[in-house]
């Protein structure tokens, strides 16, 4: 670990140099205040005044649809065309924690080469952030990072403090050392401390994650779940936007007039009805309430028992995405017994009005 200083005007010139032989991905404004991670061709597209992207950065490692291999009867040809040298710039601490959870998940017991190869070729150049009313990351303690990045740029208005988190990160600095200042003054350190304190106070939303494993167990048959199930649209949006969701489906797609198939994996969601259906039509989770319960049990209880922390990084994406306000904040608060102001809680009143 080493911390150095970079003048703001030198940020894009530096990025240009280090991304010469790599695909650069960075936040770009899609419409209004919605941003996406995009492959950058023109640096003016990059918009660092974003809070969260619509889809988390795991899409860069594992695209929503990925051809795994081509099969004939006698041979299999693997496809790793999604693997290329990439730089992911502008990612925030919550999303780094999301990737750290993915890293552990995809490498445990059986290593998933489609993820791990893409991940190994991706450098993480993170950027500091400022919370809005949906950010929950202080509650999950994912508002700061200790690992999982190569460089981390903390925006102190006039300049950046740059954390070097890996030897690959250090190699990037060595490409243009004259941009960086090794000497931090007491004033620089003080501005960073002040910035951290101001940011800590800017968080507006919190939930009691520590209580969740017990509450999930105690309220497993609570009527709350039926209420959520009634409102849930089973659209799968919460899964698409969650940095720790990883489920996928696999399909065999025959190539016409050739004795071969392309085997493709596509993002799937446990909130969709077909998800747990087995041959013969038996479905172990026909009810929406049961599927929602799986989603929340897995993130707020199962992960805690397996890894000691929840699979929620507090990014707030489910809060801004769910059309009927079913999200980790409203569900968490409701589990705690609070009266929650959310569409799903007002549903019977509003629909019968």
């Amino acid at each position, binding site marked *: 670990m080493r911390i150095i200083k970079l003048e703001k005007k030198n940020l894009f010139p530096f990025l240009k140099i280090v991304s010469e032989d790599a695909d650069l991905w960075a936040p770009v404004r899609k419409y209004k205040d919605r941003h996406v991670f995009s492959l950058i061709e023109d640096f003016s597209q990059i918009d660092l005044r974003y809070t969260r992207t619509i889809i988390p950065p795991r899409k860069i490692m594992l695209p929503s649809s990925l051809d795994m291999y081509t099969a004939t*009867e*006698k041979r299999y*040809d693997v496809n790793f065309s999604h693997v290329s040298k990439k730089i992911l710039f502008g990612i925030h601490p919550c999303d780094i924690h999301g990737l750290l959870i993915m890293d552990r998940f995809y490498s*445990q017991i059986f290593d*998933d080469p489609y993820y791990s190869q893409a991940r190994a070729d991706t450098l993480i150049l993170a950027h500091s952030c400022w919370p809005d009313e949906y950010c929950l990351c202080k509650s999950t303690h994912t508002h700061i990072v200790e690992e999982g990045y190569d460089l981390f740029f903390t925006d102190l208005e006039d300049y950046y403090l740059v954390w070097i988190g890996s030897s690959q990160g250090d190699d990037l600095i060595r490409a243009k050392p004259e941009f960086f200042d090794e000497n931090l003054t007491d004033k620089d350190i003080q501005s960073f401390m002040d910035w951290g304190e101001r940011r800590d106070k800017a968080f507006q939303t919190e939930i009691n994650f520590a209580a969740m494993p017990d509450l999930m167990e105690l309220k497993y048959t609570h009527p709350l779940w039926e209420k959520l199930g009634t409102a849930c649209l089973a659209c799968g949006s919460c899964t698409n936007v969650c940095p720790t969701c990883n489920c*996928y489906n696999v*399909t065999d797609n025959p190539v016409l007039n050739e004795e*071969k198939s392309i085997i493709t994996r596509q993002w799937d969601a446990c909130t969709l009805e077909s998800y747990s259906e087995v041959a013969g039509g038996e479905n*172990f989770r026909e009810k929406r309430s049961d599927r929602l319960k799986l989603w929340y049990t897995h993130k707020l*209880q199962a992960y805690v028992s397996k890894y000691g922390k929840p699979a929620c990084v507090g990014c707030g994406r489910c809060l801004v995405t769910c059309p009927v306000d079913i999200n980790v904040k409203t569900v968490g608060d409701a589990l705690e017994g609070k009266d929650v102001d959310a569409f799903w809680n007002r549903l019977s009143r509003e629909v019968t009005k």
Partner: protein
Amino acid sequence: MNEANKSLILNNPFIPEPARIVRTYYLTEDVKFFQVRIAKMEKALSFDYRPGQFAMISVLGAGEAPFSISSTPSRPGLLEFCIRKTGVVTNAIFRLKENDLIGLRGPYGNGFPIEKMINKDVLIVMGGLGAAPLRSVLLYSLDNRDLFGRVILLHGAKRPAEMIFREEFFSLKDRDDLECLLAVDGDDTGEWKEKIGVVTTLFPHLKEIEPSNTYAIVCGPPVMYKFVLKELVNLDIPKHQILMTLERRMKCGVGKCGHCAIDYIYTCLDGPVFTYWNVIHMRELI
């Protein structure tokens, strides 16, 4: 095949091995038996598995699905499966003939805790297609007969024609080192000489069980579990010595696709064999 492709296949748990169907025939109207050999000889002989594990089988153009291995590792070289025609993949498998190729990868899952079962009595309760995974542990215990105490088989089917491995199990009745009780819900042939009724009607015919020294193994249709588990608990067999093997939708077999998740567990990694105690609090179990 270039070198890069070779190494990416080698470290890729998703890539199947071509395997050849050696024999196939109907066990019942909609269940077929498949004997399969992995095409590469060294891979066929090194395929090391435990009773209770499963494999992913794929058919070109149809897809891939998990199947319990019905053969026993005590008879290496050939793998056996009994498959019911229910969905896209199984329909495609049914169309295949002897000498046709399928894709196969595995073995996956935990399998039965054989080490813990050594010197214990083994009570196997199977209903319908539940015989598919349990035939492996049954044959294994018969091939290694000295390792176990009593071996007891209770097998139930709807009708005589629907009892899979009917002839095989009938021939086992002659062995004096196996207690074999068979039942059908109803006999439409008029020739059934064994018991009539659901599989639980066989329990009163059991010779006295020494519960603490017994491992019970159960597999069958969802409706069967509730009644069989009740009988086993009534016999005072400890819940952690009641083993069951579960079926779930699976797309990977290696803990990545998420489809087989139940509460805390992945059926493909933590299962498919669970003790009754493991799953007693899981409300969406069977």
